[in-house]
């Protein structure tokens, strides 16, 4: 059993009382809490050396630029990128995915082409492709899920025909917790000549990530789910992809020259960072990466697996609970969706909230998946480094309370 007891004290919000009870935060998949180590770095940036980056010929601007670019280096190392110029800072995973969908898709897709997604995608990895499909005439294809809530990769050889120009899929479902075999899917898609992208918004905070081992072409993530601040995220791109992609936004800092009639672009990654970037947020993300690396992503993964295993066990004490997700702990991460009898998830969440327990109820921005599960919504709990078995025990007690109120046996 990994000892994470020292971690909790780093997260000030966990001292909150909710309706008179200590906070049990089980909604980190929506957004994680932040350790003081991240908050202090950001606050200090503003208080001691803040200035715009890449612009000034003065000390503060140099210091800010160095801190910003160092953060890029930290993120690059964290995901094992070949070089820091492969990392583009974005507002979040959503922007990163839109950046590729538009920046690559608009010029490389046309009627007759197909875009492959999966039934498990977050809307962030569905809607941008729908928008681009509409503008280009390309079609969408969805890889289905099997009975064990895993991607049905047996269907891949069948579905992967030469019209599939891009395959973009999740590294870990934010609903079922499923972790598909990324490298394997990427290899099959690549062999078919498709561009391959992985949405690691969830995976990145639950397991070590190695983009070189993935052998994908792009990877998207958000800072706020990995102990970093809001307003920042990243796109990792294979250098050849970043070279050929059009910029998603135009503006300052991303140009080499601007003439009245047209402009030329700065080298990557700056080509994709139009305007003033989320400077302090990037620095905060760098601090979050430092924090996670200090714990060690292998330990984080182990801790998540242990907690998930414990939670699945305890949930099985309640016969009315039906879990939507793989039972195999090696094929899933610390996100569990379930139904409790036919109590609506929203009612479950409200009652748990009265007990100080924060869980999420809804479609979790994954309507196609929720629909495939055959329910209007699910209750979701999700774990981070600061969660403990006590949190799980509180959850179970809270669910018993729900059963009482709604008279579920």
């Amino acid at each position, binding site marked *: 059993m990994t000892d994470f007891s020292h971690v909790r004290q780093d997260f000030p919000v966990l001292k909150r009382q909710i*309706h008179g009870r200590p906070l049990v935060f089980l909604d980190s998949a929506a957004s994680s809490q932040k350790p003081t180590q991240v908050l202090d770095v950001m606050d200090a940036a503003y208080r001691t050396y803040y200035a715009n980056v890449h612009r000034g010929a003065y000390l503060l601007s140099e210091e800010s630029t160095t801190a910003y670019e160092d953060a890029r280096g930290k993120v690059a190392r964290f995901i094992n990128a070949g070089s820091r110029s492969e990392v583009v800072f974005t507002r979040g995973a959503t922007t990163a995915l839109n950046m590729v969908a538009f920046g690559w898709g608009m010029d490389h897709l046309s009627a007759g082409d197909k875009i492959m997604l999966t039934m498990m995608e977050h809307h962030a990895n569905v809607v941008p492709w729908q928008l681009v499909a509409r503008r280009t005439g390309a079609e969408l294809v969805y890889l289905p899920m099997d009975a064990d809530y895993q991607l049905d990769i047996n269907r891949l050889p069948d579905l992967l025909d030469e019209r599939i120009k891009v395959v973009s899929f999740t590294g870990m479902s934010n609903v079922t917790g499923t972790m598909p075999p990324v490298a394997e899917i990427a290899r099959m898609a690549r062999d078919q000549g498709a561009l391959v992208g992985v949405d690691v918004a969830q995976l990145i905070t639950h397991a070590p990530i190695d983009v070189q081992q993935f052998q994908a072409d792009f990877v998207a993530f958000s800072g706020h789910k990995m102990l970093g601040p809001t307003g920042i995220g990243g796109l990792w791109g294979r250098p050849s992809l970043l070279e050929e992609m059009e910029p998603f936004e135009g503006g300052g800092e991303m140009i080499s020259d601007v003439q009245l009639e047209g402009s030329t672009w700065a080298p990557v990654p700056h080509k994709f960072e139009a305007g003033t970037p989320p400077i302090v947020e990037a620095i905060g993300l760098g601090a979050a990466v430092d924090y996670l690396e200090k714990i060690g992503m292998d330990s984080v993964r182990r801790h998540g697996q242990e907690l998930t295993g414990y939670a699945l066990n305890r949930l099985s004490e309640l016969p009315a609970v039906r879990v939507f997700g793989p039972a195999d702990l090696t094929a899933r991460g610390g996100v569990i969706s379930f139904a409790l009898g036919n*109590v*609506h*998830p*929203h*009612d479950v969440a*409200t*009652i748990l909230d*009265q007990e100080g327990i924060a869980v999420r*109820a*809804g*479609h979790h921005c994954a309507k196609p998946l*929720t629909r495939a599960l055959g329910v*209007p*919504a699910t209750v979701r709990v999700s774990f981070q480094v600061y969660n403990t078995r006590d949190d799980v025990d509180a959850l179970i007690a809270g669910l018993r*309370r729900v059963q009482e*109120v*709604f*008279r579920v046996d």
Partner: protein
Amino acid sequence: MSIEELYRDVILDHNRNPRNRGTLDHPDAHAEGNNPLCGDELSLDLRLDGDRVTEVAIQGQGCSISQSSASMMSQAIKGKTLEEIEAVIATFKAMMDIQASPSRAGLDPDRPGAVLGDLEALQGVRKFPVRIKCANLAWTTLEEALRSGKGKVES
């Protein structure tokens, strides 16, 4: 504040046994409402005889608050004239207005049910502001149906 203030027996009963479920053939007014946040969905059919609502049929899915609110709403408007219904809507809205005091909302704390009947059980929702949208869904959908004959709302 206890959770039982929200989940009163009347609400749980309407949730378990929703009244006036179903659809009408060729309804005189129809609207669909949904609450994208929680996924609550509602479809409302009305039959009118002159300015009187003679039949109400509701289909949908959602939390106990949205579903019981719809069920109670259907009881409260069935058989009433459009003018009477406007009054019920106004009273219900006032009850859900967390700015207003219960008495200003036209409710009589000493005679529960006097004005809105079963619906007054939804008073507890005022203490759970995020759930007010759930309680309101049936009513915004009703207003839409009355306004447009046929319509769609999002709350």
